[in-house]
């Protein structure tokens, strides 16, 4: 239905086109000419006429045409307007005269036509729109149709819903021309109005299409008023505060109309507006201003069911320039980059070694053991090369041998003898073991014997002595070695007195180098085999009860009773694989016999054979005191090598062959023996005994 159509807007209704002609009842042809060039129209009209004119008219036209063209052709139509030309049989001689006549005739027509249409009913008006600004009154506008050449009067009639009474528009003036204003009294809300406009002139009237209007749905308020824009500051950032008032006529206070507002903003130089919906409030803050400058603001409003008002007049405000643009973005970016940089730096720091290696590969330096770069830098070549020299290299054979020595095989034959010996073991015997702390005994014998403790103790005491410290060690070593030799098969014996292996079993096999046989033999026997320094030393160790003897030496104490080992009753002959030197024969401890009241096992050197092998034999127990001529040794002479040649005093026994002597090792044992041996000046040989005290004063 058309109720809303009017409200929707001016609907363009086509004006009824005036009919180009009308054939009246008379013979006259009323040809209405349009304002175009008359001659053209004449031609076109004439062509139309052919279709619709009756024969009578056609004949008429033809006659006229014949008059016009001056030709007697029938059916030729020409446009003739208002041809009241009486048909005369006479033809115009001159075409030009006819034309002139026509023109003369046409001219007033044209002018008459241009002036308006005389006496035609008016055209149909069209209702364009109806609007109510405040839902209390409303106005309707129409567009009139054609005039018809006469004064046309337009009137609006309306009919209310559910009522057949037709009323005319109360007010044609207030709203302007071609309008009808309905005031409050005539306006009823929620009522359908059926409105029609009628155009009337003397010739007729024209009715427009009816339109149904309900005022509630045609509300379009006026724009808001008093729009004020002010620049305010919030924490340094400017913003716009826009406030307005509802249009004066709209009654929002009583709740009759509820308006919602909308505003738009733009910079002066911009083209696009930024719209904001403000709802029902009458104030709005525009916060995000991109930059400073002149801002333009406009507001409009709308009822809940209605049309938007027009935009209000533009309000302007000047916003000061500020560097607001993208500040937060810059800050964010800065923070982000700083963070990333820190992370990268940290990673680099963690991997700096890898990087360093990658970028600056290390120059390979000399990798020689003992090569000191610092020395190189200092520039002293001697030091450098001396540093290169490994003190252990080339390793001395003794030490090597020492190192290479395998564990001794301890052959222990448990016999009664031994048991007795074990029982009768004194701490003295332990001294033979000479398990000094300085030497490492890895044979494990220490665990078996408790004597080692005492031995250690002794060793410590001796170690304190500076004078014969080295001697002591050597002696101890030799003691050990001797033990080693006696008990086991010694593979290799270094020349030097090995440090370490201690055989601490004073058993049957401990030799007792007491006897010294003939000087020559002794002498030769003294010559230690190269490989058997051990034996010598051990022999030495055996000698004079080993440590006790040396103890006295080091401490300068009264000579302790030497302890010679009594040879076992059995008379076992201790024999070692290696050569057992009989060097100790010379130093047959005379003392021990006299000094050792307790039982101890002694082994005496039987002899030293040609192979520099000391043959031992156990001394028969029982008489510890003084086996006549056996116990005491007598210094025979001092050799050129500072070797004290001892010989057994007293009888010469058959059973006791001269013990051969061996040379001790030239090295340390020389010292040792020197210690043992009494020098020329020294050795007050009383009774041929060796004074232990003096011995120790020898150079070591």
């Amino acid at each position, binding site marked *: 239905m058309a109720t809303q159509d009017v409200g929707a807007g001016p609907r363009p209704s086509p004006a009824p086109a005036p009919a180009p002609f009308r054939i009246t009842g008379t013979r006259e042809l009323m040809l209405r000419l349009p304002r175009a060039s008359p001659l053209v129209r004449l031609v076109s009209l004439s062509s139309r006429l052919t279709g619709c004119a009756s024969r009578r008219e056609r004949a008429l036209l033809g006659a006229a045409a014949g008059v016009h063209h001056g030709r007697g052709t029938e059916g030729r139509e020409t446009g003739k307007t208002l041809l009241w030309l009486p048909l005369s049989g006479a033809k115009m001689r001159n075409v030009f005269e006819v034309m002139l006549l026509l023109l003369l005739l046409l001219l007033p027509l044209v002018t008459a036509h241009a002036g308006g249409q005389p006496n035609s009913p008016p055209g149909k008006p069209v209702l364009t729109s109806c609007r109510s600004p405040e839902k*209390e009154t409303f106005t309707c506008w129409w567009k009139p149709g054609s005039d018809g050449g006469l004064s046309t009067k337009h009137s609006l009639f309306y009919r209310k819903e559910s009522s*057949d009474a037709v009323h005319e528009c109360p007010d044609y003036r207030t709203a302007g021309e071609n309008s009808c204003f309905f005031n*409050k009294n005539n306006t009823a809300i929620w009522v359908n109005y059926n409105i029609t406009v009628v155009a009337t002139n003397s010739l007729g009237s024209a009715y427009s299409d009816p339109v149904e209007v309900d005022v509630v749905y045609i509300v379009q308020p006026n724009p808001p008023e008093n729009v004020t824009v002010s620049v305010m500051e919030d924490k340094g950032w400017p913003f716009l505060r826009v406030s307005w008032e509802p249009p004066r006529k709209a009654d*929002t206070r*009583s709740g*009759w109309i509820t308006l919602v507002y909308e505003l738009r903003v733009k910079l002066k130089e911009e083209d696009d507006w930024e719209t904001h919906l403000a709802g029902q409030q009458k104030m709005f803050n525009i916060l995000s201003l991109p930059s400073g400058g002149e801002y333009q603001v406009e507001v409009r409003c709308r009822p809940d069911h209605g049309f938007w008002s027009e935009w209000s007049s533009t309000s302007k405000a000047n916003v000061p320039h500020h560097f607001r643009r993208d500040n937060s973005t810059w800050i964010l970016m800065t923070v982000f980059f700083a963070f990333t940089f820190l992370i990268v730096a940290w990673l680099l720091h963690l991997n700096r070694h890898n990087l360093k290696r990658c970028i600056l590969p290390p120059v390979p330096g000399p990798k020689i053991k003992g090569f000191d770069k610092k020395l190189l830098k200092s520039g002293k070549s001697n030091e450098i090369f001396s540093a290169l020299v490994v003190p252990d290299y080339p390793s001395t054979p003794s030490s090597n041998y020492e190192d290479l020595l395998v564990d001794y095989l301890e052959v222990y034959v448990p016999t009664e003898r031994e048991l007795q010996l074990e029982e009768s073991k004194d701490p003295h015997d332990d001294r033979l073991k000479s398990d000094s702390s300085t030497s490492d005994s890895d044979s494990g014998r220490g665990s078996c014997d408790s004597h080692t403790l005492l031995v250690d103790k002794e060793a410590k005491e001796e170690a304190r002595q500076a004078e014969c410290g080295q001697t002591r060690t050597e002696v101890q070593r030799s003691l050990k070695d001797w033990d080693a030799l006696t008990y086991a098969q010694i593979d290799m014996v270094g020349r030097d007195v090995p440090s370490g292996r201690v055989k601490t079993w004073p058993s049957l096999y401990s030799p007792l180098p007491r006897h010294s046989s003939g000087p020559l033999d002794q002498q030769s026997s003294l010559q230690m085999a190269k490989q058997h320094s051990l034996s010598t030393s051990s022999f030495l160790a055996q000698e004079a009860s080993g440590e006790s003897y040396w103890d006295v030496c080091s401490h300068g104490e009264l000579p302790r009773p030497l302890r010679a080992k009594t040879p076992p009753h059995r008379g076992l002959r201790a024999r070692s694989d290696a050569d057992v030197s009989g060097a100790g024969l010379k130093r047959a401890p005379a003392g021990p016999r006299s000094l050792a009241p307790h039982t101890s096992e002694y082994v005496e050197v039987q002899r030293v054979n040609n192979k520099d092998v000391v043959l031992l034999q156990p001394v028969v127990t029982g008489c510890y005191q003084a086996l006549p001529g056996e116990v005491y040794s007598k210094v025979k002479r001092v050799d050129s090598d500072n070797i004290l040649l001892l010989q057994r005093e007293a009888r010469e026994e058959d059973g006791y062959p001269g013990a051969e002597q061996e040379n001790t090792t030239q090295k340390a044992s020389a010292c040792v023996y020197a210690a043992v041996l009494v020098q020329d000046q020294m050795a007050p040989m009383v009774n041929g005994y060796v004074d232990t005290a003096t011995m120790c004063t020898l150079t070591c």
Partner: protein
Amino acid sequence: MMHGTIRSVSCVWVVWVCLFFCSSVTMVGAAPICANAQGGCHVLSLANLFDRVIQHSARTHGISNNLHTEFEQYFMPSKNHIGRVSRNCHTSSILTPNGKDNAQRMAREELTEVILKLLVAWRDPLWHFHQSMAHHHDFNNFSSNKALEMSNMVHELHKGVEKVAEKMQVLGIISNTVSSLVSPEALLASDSSEWRPMRDYDLLYCFRRDSNKVQNYLKILKCRIIPEHGC
């Protein structure tokens, strides 16, 4: 097994309880009323009630408008209808103010009565309208749902307005004549079978208008009673 069944039963019960409470909360009339009879508390709750009711009516009107537009698209009234006498809504018997002045001149009680009458008058027709829509195959489900929603909303709106009237009576804003007048006239209007021959389209048209009336009257009432609250 026992535990499982017990748990499921308890879950179902909890869910049901929750649903029950939720549904009751969403109803219009379930506004919290202050326990202690203090003046400020009452006024505030009345304003709150009014707002809710007005919102509800606005929504109702919106739905009716949509439905009416849809009808116009699908069932374009023929040109014959243009000239005919406009439809007769069954609520035309209820006297409603047709202008601002009339509405403002009307007493609060009368206005409230009018609102209630209108709402009562539309309860049944809308329900039947929904029924008829459901049976029509021409309408899609969306329209049918809207009709149902409309019907429900009117129902709730009626309850809400009743609550508001009650509140106003308690507060002494209006006299106690409102409630008694509602039932008989309204029932008459709804009992009458005037609305039956009405076509769906006309029905929608009438209801659209009436919902607008209700909304407007409520606003007027609110701004008259509580002017400081958003008027």
